[in-house]
């Protein structure tokens, strides 16, 4: 007790001198400790918040695809309009199909020649003649393709091409690029599949795999759509492949516009290859 008191006293005694020599510094540290503690505490708290936010951020990006898929549900409903195949009553009931009452049968006793339809009519008759495509259609198509070409240029500017050669091709196959865009692939897949009705009755499922190069506009509509070279070549020589390619094209158009995060347009502006592969559906 006494020693401590004396110490304080001595401190007090020596105080004036000390006070004079470093009054500011003496006062400074005291304020400084509290102040800096507060200050650092604030910074720490601020950092914490920011970090917390940062930690949440990746989760948000992971959440995005999920949101997208659900949004997709809604969009599809709108896009497809009434896709439910509620069998609309044909206003022309096929009379031939109504179970005709027995009397419709023509009795042909032993010699049925007269009642049997003559088959030889077929020989003279129906010769399907390929019609020359009429001019108006051609010109329209021409315009359309020209317009498409124009769109191509608009949607795929030269810029990326310059640096593209080494870059994208390398990145495409490996993890990082795919990881970053896996959610986009899922979102797009989730929106297209509803509209896709592939010709699953074909004998060889391999013939039905088709690849497209699709460029999307920022609003999710189809900007440009073309078969890849391989698919175009296969479709030219195989009617099943052609049918499969057309079914895929109908699906792509029917389910547009696609709902994808606008801020990542750069990542989904081009989809290539957009592959349709019905082998799983066919159990092959």
């Amino acid at each position, binding site marked *: 007790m006494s020693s401590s008191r004396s110490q304080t006293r001595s401190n007090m005694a020596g105080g004036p001198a000390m006070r004079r020599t470093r009054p500011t510094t003496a006062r400074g540290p005291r304020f400084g400790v509290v102040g800096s503690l507060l200050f650092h505490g604030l910074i720490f708290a601020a950092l914490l918040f920011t970090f917390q936010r940062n930690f949440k951020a990746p989760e948000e990006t992971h959440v995005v695809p999920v949101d997208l898929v659900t949004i997709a549900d809604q969009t599809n409903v709108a896009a497809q309009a009434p896709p439910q195949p509620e069998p609309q009553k044909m206003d022309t009931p096929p009379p031939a199909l109504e179970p005709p009452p027995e009397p419709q049968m023509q009795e042909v006793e032993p010699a049925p020649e007269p009642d049997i339809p003559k088959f030889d*009519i077929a020989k003279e008759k129906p010769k399907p003649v390929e*019609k020359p495509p009429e001019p108006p259609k051609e010109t329209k198509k021409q315009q359309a393709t020209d317009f498409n070409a124009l769109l191509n240029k608009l949607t795929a500017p030269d810029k990326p091409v310059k640096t593209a050669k080494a870059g994208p091709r390398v990145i495409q196959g490996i993890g990082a690029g795919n990881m970053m865009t896996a959610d986009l692939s899922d979102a797009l897949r989730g929106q297209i599949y509803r509209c896709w009705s592939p010709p699953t009755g074909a004998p060889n499922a391999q013939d039905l795999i088709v690849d497209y190069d699709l460029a999307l506009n920022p609003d999710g509509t189809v900007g440009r759509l073309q078969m890849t070279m391989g698919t175009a070549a296969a479709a030219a020589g195989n009617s099943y492949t052609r*049918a499969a390619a057309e079914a895929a094209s109908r699906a792509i158009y029917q389910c547009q516009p696609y709902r994808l995060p606008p801020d990542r347009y750069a990542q989904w502006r081009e989809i290539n290859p957009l592959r349709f592969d019905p082998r799983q559906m066919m159990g092959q």
Partner: protein
Amino acid sequence: MTYLKKILVLLAALMALGAATPALAALQVDVTQGNAQPLPIAIPDFLPGGGGDPQAGANIAGVVRADLERSGLFRPLDQKGFVEHITDINKVPTFASWRSITAQGLVTGQVTQQPDGRLRVDFRLWDVYGESQMLGLQFFSTPENWRRIAHMVSDAIYERVTGEKGYFDTRIVFISESGPATKRVKRLAIMDEDGANPIFLTPGNYMVLTPRFNPTAQMIAYMSYIGAKPRVYLFDIETGKQEMLGNFPNMTFSPRFSPDGNQVALTLETAGNSDIYLMDLRTRAMKRLTTDPAIDTAPSFSPDGKQIAFESDRGGAQQIYVMNVDGSNQHRISFGEGRNGTPVWSPRGDLLAFTKQDKGRFNIGVMRPDGSGERVITSGYHDEGPTWAPNGRVLMFSREAQNNRGAQIWSVDITGRNERHVLTPGSASDPALSPLIQ
């Protein structure tokens, strides 16, 4: 300042990287699951192009709609909902108006009576989304043949959209059944694929079974009990003439034409042993293919004519076997549950359809010619006797319910979807679909 500059440069570089990299890499997407749905297609009544029956256009479009709907792959839309009214088939339609009613395909057509009295039918198939013409054809025929023209239009549309040949311009030969179960009358009958124009070919005072078309759809081979002797006969549709195929002391049954139409494979029973023979229709020479003491029957050619599938109980129970057309290399291919019989080779060559008897039920199944990939595609109290549509895509078969009300003909897609009752006048069994009519 310099630090700030460096940081700025670094930041800019990072941003450039972040923005540039994904832009360069095209997104890759694999769509592996779909939603099998019939294609919504708009088929307005064909326009009258002048002369003839003003109703012809509506009639033809009606048959086309019914054909395509029956296939299960198309959904013809109700005309009442159409926004655009086609007035000229040579004008490009307003695709947006057809998209607005969810049509993905559009068929426009016109029927004109030619100065020479013939009917001319033009039609175009449009891709509503692709905004282009997929097909444009013209047919000429006599006016009374309008149904066949309609079926040909259906076949052309079906082929263009699905990639495989149609089967609407075909006929079905079948056994028409009438009378009580104990005294059933079975007559050979024929009708169009859509059930129109049914005609009896035999009078009904003798029983007929298992009719089969030849490759030109002009001739039918079948088994008949004329004079209480079960024998294989040939029936010429054009002349109405029947003839017994060979004159054997014993029963012959289960005939089937070879793909070139020059031979008939059939079963001949001698001393209680049934074996498969090949008869040359020009020389009437018979060649024995199986010699096993078991029952070998129900032969069916592969479409290349090199092999024959058949059923045999040589292994103890009825199973499916395949052999070369000269009788060599006989080997069993069915090893699944139950008994398997009446194999029928698909015209496409990729599958065999057969009747499967298992756990008290009769089902229709398909398997590859090597016996792999067996699938049961229908299941019923008594489904049997499959026959292929010429495109190898659709099967018909006989179905009998437990209530014994008589057999019916049903059709099914080889995917197992679209099972439908084929309407016939009265009970019917043993259908055989013709090849596309030439």
